[in-house]
C-alpha cells in the first residue's frame, strides 16, 4: 500500500533517530538508573514499527534484511551463553562479574557481564515484538 503523505514521511525520518538514541540510552542506563534490556528493546522495536507503518513493509524489509525470528533466537542464545560462560571460571550458573577498566576515551568505566545478558533480553524483545506485528499485519 502506497501513501503520499510527505509530512509524515519527512518527520518519521527525523523522529526515528531520536527513538533509536533513546533506546540505546535506556539500554545502557539500566545498570544504575531506570531502564535496561526489556524497555530498551521495546523502544527499539517501536522505532522499527514506526518505519513499517510509515513506509512499505517490503521497502523496510529490503533495507533491514534481518529475519526477526532469528534475532530473537540469537538473543536467547546470548542470554543462556552468559549463564554457561560462568562455568569457565568454575562458579555456579548465571554468576555475574564486574570490574573497572580504564578505556582510552571514556575514562574509568564499570564493565559487567550483566550487560551481555541484558543485550540478549533486548534482542529477544525486539525479535518477538516485530515478529508479532509483522505476522498480524499481513493479509491471509
Amino acid at each position, binding site marked *: 500500500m502506497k501513501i503520499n*503523505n510527505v509530512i509524515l514521511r519527512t518527520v518519521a525520518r527525523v*523522529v526515528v533517530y531520536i527513538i533509536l538514541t533513546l533506546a540505546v540510552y535506556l539500554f545502557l542506563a539500566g545498570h544504575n538508573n531506570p531502564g535496561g534490556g526489556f524497555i530498551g528493546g521495546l523502544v527499539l522495536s517501536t522505532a522499527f514499527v514506526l518505519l513499517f507503518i510509515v513506509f512499505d513493509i517490503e521497502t523496510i524489509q529490503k533495507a533491514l534484511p534481518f529475519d526477526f525470528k532469528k534475532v530473537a533466537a540469537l538473543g536467547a542464545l546470548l542470554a543462556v551463553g552468559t549463564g554457561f560462560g560462568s562455568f569457565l571460571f568454575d562458579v555456579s550458573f548465571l554468576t555475574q562479574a564486574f570490574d573497572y577498566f580504564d578505556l582510552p576515551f571514556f575514562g574509568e568505566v564499570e564493565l559487567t557481564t550483566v550487560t551481555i545478558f541484558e543485550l540478549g533480553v533486548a534482542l529477544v524483545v525486539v525479535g518477538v515484538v516485530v515478529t508479532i506485528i509483522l505476522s498480524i499485519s499481513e493479509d491471509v
Partner: protein
Amino acid sequence: MSVSTIAEFIAVLLMLIGAIMALISAIGIIRFPDIYTRSHAATKSSTLAVLLTLLGAFLYFATTTGFVSVRLILGIVFVFITSPVAGHLITRAAYRANVKLADTTIEDELADVLKEKQQKEGK
C-alpha cells in the same frame, strides 16, 4: 534574591502557564463545534503546554540540583516535532472519511482540489 531563587521563580511561572494553557486547550476541545477546530485547539495549545511544563521542570532541576536532564531536552524536541504531525494525520484521516465541517464554515478549498484530481483520474 539569589540567582537560584530567581530561576526557581521562573520555573514555577513556566509550569503554571503550562498548566493554564492545558486547561484552555481542554476547554477548547469541549466547546469547539467540529473535529477540525477541535484539533486546532488540541494540537497547538496542548503542545505549548507540554513544552512550557517540561522547560520549567528542566530549569528547576538544572538550577536547584545542578542536574542537566538530557531526557527532558529530548522530550521537548520530540513533542515539538511529533504532536503537530499527529494532529495533521488525525484531521487528514477525518477529511478523507468525509467528516462534515461545522455549519459556520464558509469556504472549503480542499474539496475543489480533490474533485479536480478525481476528475483527472477518472479520465
